[in-house]
């Protein structure tokens, strides 16, 4: 199965850039364009400052959690469609179909990790390196597990409820706006904060920001929450996927 997964990820990377002139460079160019846009709007026009009493450049703040968001959002939207996209082989070849959502998730993360690595490089060259930064890795692993679980659930649901595909993009956009990624949790009025505490991504974003921007380990209870979420999501994902996969050939 691992073998199959590697092949699928390879295939995914190849098909993504097969026939496009710039190839893998797109993986970096597109997010950079998005980042520049946010930077221009928030830092340039609105003069946003992420934290009231610090001189933290907005760009650093944005970048500290933005790539993780991109990977999360792309992973989820790609996994939801992955069974439909591969309807031909799902219907005609007998293989563990669960590798499909896992492939979509992992390949999205791999993809955006390239951008993140470049950011870290620039960041540590202009600033300083601390071993605390390595804490990003366990948080990232927890996030990938969380993503993979959600990906399985939605990939299995979509063939049955196709309308879900129509709203996924908007839901993800909504989640982006209520996650402390473009702005910090400090700038949110007290009465709205409750919304944020119900958003799982808040805990991920805050953990990354703490590690990368302040060189401090994340809050222990944040880690506890995301770990629980990840475990719950992956168990539910495997359970729901296995429950629904038998009907794929009928509904596709």
């Amino acid at each position, binding site marked *: 199965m691992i*073998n199959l997964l590697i*092949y699928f990820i390879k295939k995914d990377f190849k*098909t993504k850039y097969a026939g496009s002139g710039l190839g893998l460079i797109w993986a970096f160019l597109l997010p950079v364009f998005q980042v520049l846009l946010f930077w221009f709007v928030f830092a340039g026009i609105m003069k946003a400052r992420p934290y009231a009493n610090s001189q933290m450049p907005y760009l650093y703040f944005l970048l500290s959690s933005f790539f993780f968001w991109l990977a999360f959002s792309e992973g989820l939207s790609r996994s939801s469609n992955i069974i439909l996209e591969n309807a031909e*082989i799902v219907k005609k070849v007998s*293989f563990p179909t669960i590798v499909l959502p896992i492939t979509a998730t992992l390949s999205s993360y791999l993809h955006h990790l390239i951008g993140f690595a470049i950011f870290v490089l620039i960041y540590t060259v202009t600033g300083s390196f601390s071993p605390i930064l390595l804490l990003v890795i366990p948080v990232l692993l927890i996030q990938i597990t969380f993503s993979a679980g959600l990906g399985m659930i939605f990939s299995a649901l979509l063939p*049955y409820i196709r*309308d879900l595909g129509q709203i996924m993009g908007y839901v993800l956009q909504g989640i982006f706006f209520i996650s402390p990624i473009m702005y910090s949790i400090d700038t949110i009025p007290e009465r709205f904060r409750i919304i944020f505490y119900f958003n799982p991504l808040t805990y991920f974003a805050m953990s990354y920001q703490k590690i990368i921007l302040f060189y401090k380990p994340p809050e222990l209870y944040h880690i506890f929450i995301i770990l629980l979420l990840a475990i719950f999501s992956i168990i539910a994902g495997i359970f729901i996927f296995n429950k629904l996969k038998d009907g794929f050939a009928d509904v596709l």
Partner: protein
Amino acid sequence: MDTAITLKNITKIYKLYDRPSNRLKEVIFKKPFHKEFVALENISFELAQGESFGIIGENGAGKTTLLKILAKTLSPTSGSMEINGKVSSLLELGSGFHPEFTGMENIYFYGALLGLSKNELSKRIAEIIEFADIGDFINYPLKTYSSGMYVRLAFSVATTIDPDVLIVDEALSVGDLYFQKKSIDKILSFKKKGKTIVFCSHAIYYINQLCKTVLWLKNGKIEMYGPHYEVTQAYEKYQLEKHSDRGEQRETPEADSSVTPVRIKEVQSLPFPNLKTGDDLKIKIKVVADDSSPYKVAVILKRIDNLDVTSTYTSDTGHLNGDRELSLEFPSIQLKAGTYYIRAYVLDEHMLHVYDTRDSFPFNIPKETIDVGLVALPHKWII
């Protein structure tokens, strides 16, 4: 002997929804919002390891559904299935292939999909490439392939992974004549190696050649299950009767005496329904005609697949008139095993206009020896 495949009460019901949203409604309201179509009903059988098994039936009888369930790409609504060993299917060849990748990359990808490790594949890669016989194209993207090369590659990968159970669906018509021969040989070599083969085809000839036991599916149910010749002959007979039933309905108005002055009332062959090579075959034809219409009678002896074996007509007897009961005899008929029938015609005196035609019921010459063919010709061996 060990069993390779055990099927118990396999039933497949397709739910037909008028609208996709009804599927959702059903989940929410817990009430059925669909019509049901039973594709397979209570299919049970057991296959020993190394047995070759044929599935026949008309279009829509459930053959493909059954094959898909065996290939595990479709799950049954109820019932249980157990397959021992690795299964490879030649249903819809090449569905896992990607056109942008080279043949080589596709072999590895498809192999992984079928559950082979890279090591296992590397060992067999030479064999796969050699069998597919596509030359340098192996290093070019699949989109540059002809459709023949495409299926050849797919066939090669699917058969080279050395499955324990091979599921074949009409795949014998793959590629050119040369490759067809190669693929049949390959399937036969599986048989020799003691692998289990499930084979589905419309070509009764192949079924008889390849399979020991045959399952006849009719409207999703087992109509007959048993040794190959018994089942295939019954199936051929059924098909012919069905066709002649249809034919009668179509021809009834035409055969009305007010329109057609000459009609065939009955065509009978004796002995019936079975005879042996060397028996005397007698054919009785009853003709009803009014006295003013001279006619001639022609007879074609046909094999069930409509091959004309021989024909004869009343040439020397001059014209016939009025109601007649004719007899035709083939003494010591030298036909070999198979199912045949007689088609009789009544024609005008110039043999141009067909007044009426009618088929006899099919009759069998049961298979008793291993030889094949249509007729026994006089011959001798010089050794």
